[in-house]
Each structure stands twice: as C-alpha cells, then as structure tokens.
C-alpha cells in the first residue's frame, strides 16, 4: 500500500502568516478589558445605590452587603485578567528576536 504524504492534514498551510486574527473572530483584548471595566463600574454603581438605600432605610442590610461583595468580586476578576494580560505582554516583549 503506497503511503500518501499529502493526506496528512497538519502538513498543509493553515492561513497566511500575519493575517489579522481578529477579523470577524474574537474581539481584541482591549475590547474585552473595556467591557469588564464597564461591568466593574456598573456593579460599583449598584453597590452605591444599595448602600444609599440602606442608609435611607429603604433597603435591607444584606442587599447592600451583597452588592458591595459583588462589586469587589467583579473588580478582583478584572484585576486578575489585567495581571494575566500584562504577564503575557511582558513575556512576549522579553522574547529575543
């Protein structure tokens, strides 16, 4: 049985080197980070409203605390994503060309 070399799919060129990866694909990291920052802003705003409600006697204590905790968690998640992003960037910058 003859061996067919050209049937190996992994040997074929996949795509042109240097083509923009984000064209119609996943959004860039900048956009993702911006979206996360927006959600941080939103949850911080919600926490502010909940605390103000609690002080006014309209809201429950646990609602205010949950909103605060939620804002903190969102911020922590965003900070972690940003740390990872910076780590990857510095890793690439250190790469000898």
């Amino acid at each position, binding site marked *: 049985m003859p061996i067919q070399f050209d049937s190996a799919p992994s040997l074929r060129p996949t795509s042109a080197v240097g083509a923009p990866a984000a064209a119609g694909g996943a959004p860039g990291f900048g956009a993702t980070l911006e979206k996360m920052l927006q959600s941080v802003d939103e949850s911080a705003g919600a926490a502010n409203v909940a605390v103000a409600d609690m002080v006014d006697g309209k809201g*429950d204590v*646990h609602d205010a605390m949950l909103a605060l*905790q*939620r804002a903190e*968690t969102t911020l*922590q*998640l965003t900070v*972690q*994503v940003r740390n990872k992003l910076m780590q990857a960037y510095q890793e690439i910058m250190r790469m000898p060309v």
Partner: protein
Amino acid sequence: MSTLDAAIGASASALRAERTRVEVAVSNLANAESTRGANGEPYRRRDVVLASDPVQSFGAALGQATATGVRVAAIIEDQAPFKRRYDPAHPDADANGFVAVPNVDVPEQVVDMVSASRAYQANLSAIGLIHDMIRRALDLGR
C-alpha cells in the same frame, strides 16, 4: 459566574423572606394583649405564606435557572376563635364579664421567631460558602 450569582440571589430572597417571618412573629408578640384593632375586633394572629420563586436572571429567562428563590406569597390572618378571659373590670369586657383576647400563643411565636432567625443564619452561611468558592476560583489566577 452566573450560576453562583443565581444561588446568591436565591439565598438573598430567603433572607428577605425570613426577615418578614421575624417581623410578623414580632408583631404577633407585640399585640398578644391588644383587645382593640382597627376594625374594633381584637388583634388576629398573622401568618406568612411562602412560595418558591425562580430567581430573576439571564438563566431564568432562558429557562435554565438552577437556583429557585422564595417569596412572601401572602400574610394571612388566623381565623381561629379568640381566647376568652374572665376580667369584669376590663373596659372591653362583655355583659358576662369575659374579654376576647387575641388568638396569639406567645410560646409558639417565640419558637417561630427563633426558627426564622436560625433559617436566616443558615442562608447567610450559604452565601458565605458561595463567596468562598468564588474567591478560591479567583485564586487560580495567582
């Protein structure tokens, strides 16, 4: 995070429901001797009716809600007859000297209050546990 968010929402709705239970038990206790209400009758014992309630979230809108919360469906009045106590000197006593006093059983209300407060604590622990899970998941990134 949406599933854990829904779980926190369910626990938060339970906290609200338990707070209502405590409020109603406290008002029953406070009015255990109120022989005059707004309608001229003695105070009637109130009871909270709880109903399960899917948490309002994105998952719930898609019919994929995993956490079910609770809401106060109604606060009903106990229609049991009033207790009668012989006290001819009381201003609300009838011709035979009996006073109709609220159908509130004080020890029962205290037990109800303690049970609601314990349930509140249990739901607080559940929220703490979920927060702990989220924190540990975030620690993965370190």
